[in-house]
């Protein structure tokens, strides 16, 4: 039985080796990523054919800066989901970090304000992680509570209004409008964070254990992984990077924004991760896929506004994309279509 079963398998793999480089390349990039690339290409060509302003360098920069904030959140959301969790607080943490950075800036200067904002994000992560691990609350519910509560804190400290003015500070100006070798600083920030997280997931022991915890936490525990430490650690990472996104919001608008600019970004980050092929049950996914999905979303939203589509359609489009991505994922997993999904 077992021998007959292995024969075709070895056949297939040896045929694979003989295959042309093209097929190997397809497998290396992955079907998911290729379909994303294809979707981006189709989208770019069709938007460009309707409005050639789409191809202007200034518009490309606009897209790049627009995706930076949501891209940062999508990158850490990817890590959280790979670990088997979900973090709905990222948008609210970004808002809280944005007002905090602006308010601290007026007292203590740019560098201190940025570091303090990141620390506040980390503390938010500790809170979420501790509620999950020690309070035994599922990440979905724990961070749903955080989504509301952290937003409330941001509104409390700011009285619900934009705070401070960072528009004259060199560091904040560099973050928002500066560029290095012709590429905006904002895009650099996303690129550096994405590459670092990618390297961590792929090459470090910590990253490999994150996949293990998400794939099967009992197996990880029985193999000697301190899973509590990993869960809390990943939420701290998510909070810190979300706070970095909040600092960039402050830089772009010149003042601290408790809600505007960050509200709803948790949703975009989850959509991007799901579109990018991250398994919502954990254990599977890559930063590369998420970044492609972020670009796809950025191009789509930019195109819709260029073509003068009623902006309310943007929400409809994002919701539809999220459902479509997850439906495809679930159907491919082959689960029986009975009762509530696992």
């Amino acid at each position, binding site marked *: 039985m077992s021998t007959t079963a292995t024969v075709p398998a*070895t056949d297939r793999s040896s045929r694979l080796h003989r295959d042309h480089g093209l097929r190997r390349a397809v497998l290396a990039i992955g079907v998911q990523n290729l379909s994303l690339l294809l979707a981006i290409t189709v989208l770019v060509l069709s938007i460009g054919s309707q409005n050639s302003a789409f191809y202007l360098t200034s518009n490309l920069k606009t897209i790049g800066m627009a995706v930076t904030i949501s891209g940062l959140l999508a990158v850490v959301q990817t890590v959280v989901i790979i670990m088997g969790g979900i973090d709905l607080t990222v948008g609210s943490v970004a808002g809280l970090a944005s007002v905090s950075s602006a308010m601290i800036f007026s007292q203590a200067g740019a560098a201190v304000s940025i570091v303090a904002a990141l620390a506040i994000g980390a503390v938010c992560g500790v809170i979420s992680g501790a509620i999950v691990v020690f309070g035994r609350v599922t990440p979905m519910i724990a961070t749903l509570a955080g989504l509301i509560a952290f937003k409330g804190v941001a509104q409390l400290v700011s009285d619900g209004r934009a705070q401070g003015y960072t528009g004259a500070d060199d560091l904040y100006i560099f973050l928002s409008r500066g560029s290095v070798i012709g590429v905006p600083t904002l895009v650099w920030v996303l690129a550096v964070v994405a590459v670092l997280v990618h390297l961590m997931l792929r*090459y*470090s022991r*910590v990253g490999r254990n994150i*996949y*293990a915890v998400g794939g*099967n936490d*009992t197996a990880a525990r029985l193999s*000697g992984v*301190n899973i509590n430490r990993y869960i809390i650690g990943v939420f701290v990472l998510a909070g810190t990077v979300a706070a970095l996104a909040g600092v960039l919001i402050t830089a772009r608008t010149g003042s601290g924004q408790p809600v505007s600019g960050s509200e709803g970004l948790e949703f975009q980050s989850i959509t991007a991760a799901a579109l990018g092929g991250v398994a919502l049950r954990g254990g599977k996914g890559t930063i590369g896929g998420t970044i492609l999905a972020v670009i796809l979303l950025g191009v789509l939203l930019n195109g819709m506004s260029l073509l003068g589509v009623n902006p309310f359609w943007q929400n409809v489009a994002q919701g539809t994309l999220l459902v479509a991505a997850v439906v495809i994922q679930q159907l491919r997993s082959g689960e029986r279509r009975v009762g509530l999904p696992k």
Partner: protein
Amino acid sequence: MSPTPRPSASLYARGITKSFAGVRALVDVDLDLPAGQVTALMGENGAGKSTLLKILSGDYRPDAGRIELDGHPHAFASPLESRAMGVRVIAQEPEIVPYVSVAENIYLGVLPGRFGRVSQRQLTAQAERDLARFGFTGLLDPRSRGVDLSPAQRQMVEIMRALVDDAQVICFDEPTSSLSETETAVLFALIARLRDEGRAIGYVSHRLREIFQVADVVTVLRDGRLIGSRLVAETSETEVVRMMVGRDLSAMYDRTRTQPGDVALELVGVTTEDVRDVSLTVRRGEVVALAGLVGAGRTELALAISGDRPILSGELRVDGVPRRFRSPADAIAAGIALAPEERKADALIMVRSVRDNISLAALRQLSRLGIVNRALEHDMARRYIDQLRIRTPSMGQIVQNLSGGNQQKVVLARWLARQPEVLVLDEPTRGVDVGAKAEIYAIIDDLAAKGAAVLVISSELPEVLGLADRIVVMQNGRVTGELDRAEATEERILTLAIADHLSAEGARP
């Protein structure tokens, strides 16, 4: 609710055959459950008792064979159909809805009421009438909530469900495993009454003494085949045990004999939430089997040894040094590895590759400054895939796509890669085909020959006898005996695992 009571009915199953993924669970089995008789169904773990019950309850469909109820053939295509025919299997752990009343639990799915409106008052009154009718008054309060019930009461709810449905064929699946002596006595009196009312009763249990108390006829299965039936009045415990065991030992167990070395693992009076006062030793180069029935506390002991469950009192020593583990990570650092029973749920990361699964416990050894050396990892995976002959198209293959035997080898490879001093294997060949079984035995033998101390939990007696240098038998969370390879027989192990005199003497709380 059922306006006309059903007439008594007898159930006859003929030539039942059922396979799962090529493994034959039942082969041409006949079973008679005549009205007005208690028929006990006995056999070792894996003999096919549960499969047979699941076919009667409509959960499984047999590959071949037919079932006759009251002279008419029936398909039993679904649990609903089986129930509609008046056939019920009382589950060992019944499904009870936690936060609703006993009354609602009893009439679950058949709630009385008009136009979808349920009157709690009527419901409770009806439950009280029905409880009184079947002699449960005082044992079960229709107002208490599902979550507050004892195991015995949960089972009574399940029995009540069958009785209000006027089931004429009722099968019990190891009903006493969670019952106290008094509760067992109540259950037996009830079973006797149901029989005297003319119902056909099936009774599955491991406990010999019970069979002789409650059953009229005992039917024995072994390896999915019917061995025979005896009138309880005309048979003996010895005969039933002989029918349950007695099978050829194959040449699969070819052990290299080595002189055992120093004691690597020693337990002295270890007590946890689930096991009491367990003492045992495993020496280097030795394979010790932990035998016993499912639920004897062996898995729980294994988890305690590997640091996943706290040891409340007693001592665990590794190489003579007393240790206290706070987590599996501590135990692994001390050289103890556990391959758990539930391979898919507890050991494998199904969505990751063979390579990732093999290296999981050894990542620290493979990395420098937190970066995993992928070349070393590749070599390690290659080495163990070759050594254990894991059949996979590539080391990048997702573990989910491997067969059960190869998945188990991946788990073994993970721990071989970590090179532990003590290896605890919980049911290492469960759900594994025969060829892979023999290979896993060879791997275990090789490990021991190289000086590892191996503790194997197994519910398969031939495996225990073939593999072990020594056999420790557990029952109800206690060690009931230890047998040397030379003196061990299936009968002796089974006696230590199921005989009730020991538990009657020692297990009183």
